[in-house]
């Protein structure tokens, strides 16, 4: 799976962009507020009165990286099981009630966290808070429900991964690039771990990590901060406090030499992905590590931040183009170790080795010649404008606030990130391009396409047959 672009921009008061003069009628967004309940649960509220709707999210600081070998995928399986009931709410009843409230809902599992959300008319906030607090505190289901849902999760793995050669390649790449870090395991879990998973594996993960001090409730939309706080006290505040278990560091040892893997799968196009281990941003205070992480994010944008950026121009254009597509992405931050990714699909007639060399050459050019002020300003302008566009959706605002909480970042992380990115200089970008792209921290994965069996001919069933 190709990495999504980072959600690095959060709701902020509009920082004055380069040369942009805000119009007189633009309303400054209301700032988010954060509280801690007596049991340790975090509450974040972001009022936005543009429409009579709200989003309510529950974030748990436990994701795939909190699993251990043998039960990979359990964080995600548990996410599915949260829909299977409590002592008071039967199987499927949670979704039926949210639907009856006019709501939409879903949930997601990542390496670093798990999240649950409902989008609702804002008048229904109390109803969904009551439901969510109930399942957060008292999730309960029969073994038989687990067995059925586990089959659904296996179908999800087949759909997303087993029939997707690039997703399979990324599983292998992560398992190679990381040795001790839990980032080495796929979020959805290895199939044999799913086959062997028991109901008590999911219950144990739930008991271990679903505690108030390890969770945050984020509410964004047409709401009043004091009222939301009172509701949170009423429904979440009564959940007994429990200690959050100690987390083992599982520190990734320093990589000291290139790693290469090949993966063969039925496909037409080859594919190359390269990961370079890089420092990450843990604080907004200036520090060599934080400064470099920010400069690497600017480097990724200069390489691939817009159509016509360096990779697109150098690899995908011209009569002798090397690639059909090429990309760059910097991890920037996370609970585990971060990487800078370069990837590409070779053009017809070109080899993975050629695109690998071409990708690295583009980084080397930045290391040698630097970047222009025009490039630098362009990527910053796009980020600043994106700050306004992002405010169109309370859902996106809530997601950013929640994910930043999960990573231990402050409430104003989005605003401070933009400020810091705007301060990155051309010299810094050139310096990180020279520093982090040698062989020693590099893992290369190459997808080698195998022919699909052409001898298997479609067979038509008799037409008009009845079922």
């Amino acid at each position: 799976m190709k990495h999504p672009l980072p959600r690095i921009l959060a709701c902020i008061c509009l920082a004055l962009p380069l040369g942009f003069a805000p119009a007189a009628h633009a309303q400054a967004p209301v700032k988010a507020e954060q509280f801690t309940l007596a049991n340790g649960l975090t509450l974040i509220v972001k009022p936005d009165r543009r429409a009579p709707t709200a989003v309510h999210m529950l974030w748990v600081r436990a994701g795939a990286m909190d699993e251990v070998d043998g039960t990979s995928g359990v964080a995600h399986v548990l996410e599915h099981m949260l829909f299977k009931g409590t002592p008071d709410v039967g199987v499927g009843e949670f979704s039926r009630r949210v639907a009856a409230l006019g709501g939409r809902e879903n949930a997601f599992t990542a390496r670093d966290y798990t999240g649950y959300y409902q989008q609702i008319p804002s008048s229904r906030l109390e109803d969904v808070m009551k439901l969510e607090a109930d399942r957060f505190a008292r999730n309960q289901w029969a073994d038989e429900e687990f067995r059925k849902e586990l089959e659904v999760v296996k179908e999800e793995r087949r759909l997303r991964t087993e029939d997707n050669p690039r997703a399979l390649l990324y599983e292998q790449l992560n398992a190679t690039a990381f040795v001790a870090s839990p980032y080495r395991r796929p979020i959805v879990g290895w199939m044999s771990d799913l086959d062997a998973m028991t109901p008590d594996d999911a219950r144990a993960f739930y008991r271990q990590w679903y505690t108030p001090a390890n969770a945050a409730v984020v509410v964004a939309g047409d709401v009043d901060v004091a009222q939301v706080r009172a509701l949170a006290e009423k429904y979440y505040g009564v959940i007994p406090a429990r200690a959050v278990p100690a987390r083992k560091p599982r520190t990734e040892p320093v990589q000291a030499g290139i790693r290469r893997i090949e993966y063969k799968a039925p496909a037409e196009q080859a594919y190359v992905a390269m990961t370079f281990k890089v420092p990450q941003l843990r604080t907004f205070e200036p520090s060599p590590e934080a400064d470099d992480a920010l400069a690497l994010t600017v480097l990724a944008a200069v390489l691939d931040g817009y159509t016509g950026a360096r990779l697109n121009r150098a690899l995908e254009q011209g009569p002798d183009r090397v690639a059909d597509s090429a990309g760059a992405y910097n991890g920037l931050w996370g609970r585990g170790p971060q990487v800078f990714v370069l990837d590409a699909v070779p053009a017809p007639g070109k080899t993975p080795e050629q695109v690998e060399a071409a990708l690295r050459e583009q980084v080397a050019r930045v290391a040698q010649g630097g970047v222009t002020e025009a490039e630098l300003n362009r990527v910053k302008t796009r980020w600043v404008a994106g700050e306004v566009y992002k405010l169109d959706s309370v859902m996106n605002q809530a997601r950013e606030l929640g994910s930043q909480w999960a990573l231990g970042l402050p409430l104003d992380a989005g605003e401070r990130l933009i400020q810091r990115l705007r301060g990155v200089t051309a010299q810094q970008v050139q310096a990180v391009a020279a520093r982090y792209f040698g062989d020693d921290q590099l893992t290369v994965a190459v997808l080698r396409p195998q022919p699909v069996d052409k001898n298997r001919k479609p067979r038509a069933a008799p037409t008009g047959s009845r079922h």
Partner: protein
Amino acid sequence: MTMKPNLPLRAWCAALLLGSLPVAQAALPVEKFALPNGAQVWLVQSPGLPMVDVQIDFDAGSRRDPAEQAGLASVTAAMMSRGLVARDGQPALDENTLSEAWADLGASFGGGAGSDRMSFNLRSLTYPDLLPRAVALAARQLAEPAFPADIWQRDRERMVASIKEANTRPGTVAGRAYAQAVYGAHPYGRDVTEQTLARIAVSDMQALHARMLVPCRAKVSIVGAVTRAQAQALVGQLLARLPASSPGRCAPLPAVQEVAALGQASEQSIPFESAQAHVFIGQPGFRRNDPDYFALIVGNYILGGGGFVSRLSSEVREKRGLSYSVYSYFSPGLHAGAFTLGLQTRPDQAAQAVQVARDVLDGFVADGPTEAELRAAKDNLIGGFALRIDTNRKLLDNVAGIAWNDLPLDYLDTWTQQVDRVSVADIKAAFARKLQPRRMATVVVGGAPRP
């Protein structure tokens, strides 16, 4: 990240998204006006954020592609981002200079084609030093695309490579076989292939562009922080570089054939080496202007549209664990877009999953929903109405849907009443009129052939 599935939002059924997800609120005045150049404009003023979204639709979607040049509309719209010719003192811009100009403005502009429409979307901040420049650049891009032949050659090679790659996936193979089975020779079922792309030259794009992109054929939808006067000026400037309307320039376009009903059931079982079998079951559905529209969309919410609470999800996924994703949807457009039921499952249980899905479908068409199911559907659709219009982006989709389908300006205001009016008998009668479970197409790719 892994997620439970949302409703399947398929690119080929844009009409479903635009047409069936409207909502109503009295505080949502849609203004409509025409410009002297013949363009029609639909506007919702949304002053909360300093930004504006504009969509321009033309009746130039892929349904009008010549059969041997399937893909023409879509590649024409895409190639309009590949550079501009010099005109009226404005310099030529190559593809990179053009995209850099958009990045420097913090704005975006691009086009695409669906089955019915060719659409262009502009998003910009409304700051007075930015918006006029963004509109001016969009106006040039609409009117003066360069259509460079060498870049078309490159893009075509890329498209062919990605089509070949997609053909190694069971979902692609199933989707193609299904479209063939449901639409037959109708343009909605056409496949873009290496051969059809090979027959497209930049001169074809230039001809299509010159013929169809004229102001009097434009339907423009706007949502954002602009007044009516500003919107008027904006659209005027946006279309100013297109050829002026002249008598006959916007004469009615030739009619496109309707989708033919299926005469009999068909079943295809296509062996494929994959971890899952992909299943599609369906038939031609209905046109967007069908009077049964609300009964059908409310009914489909109950059958297979309502996320985790639909009948299909309950029987196939929740009770039996057969599939991660199972759904049904209608895709009404200017023609009868398909009714489609879809799922994916381990190949050895494909036959069972197909049987369960068909039983659910048969039962629903024969008996309709229960009163309780209809109540639950209305609670969700009416109660959640505001969620359909709570961002500028969602509003734009709805406004463009009103514009494209010639819906009344109070369509959003009456939407909940229309839903509320639907009865069990309405749904049962509408489904009986539109769906014939004994004459549907079934495609299974990846499973063992059915006995």
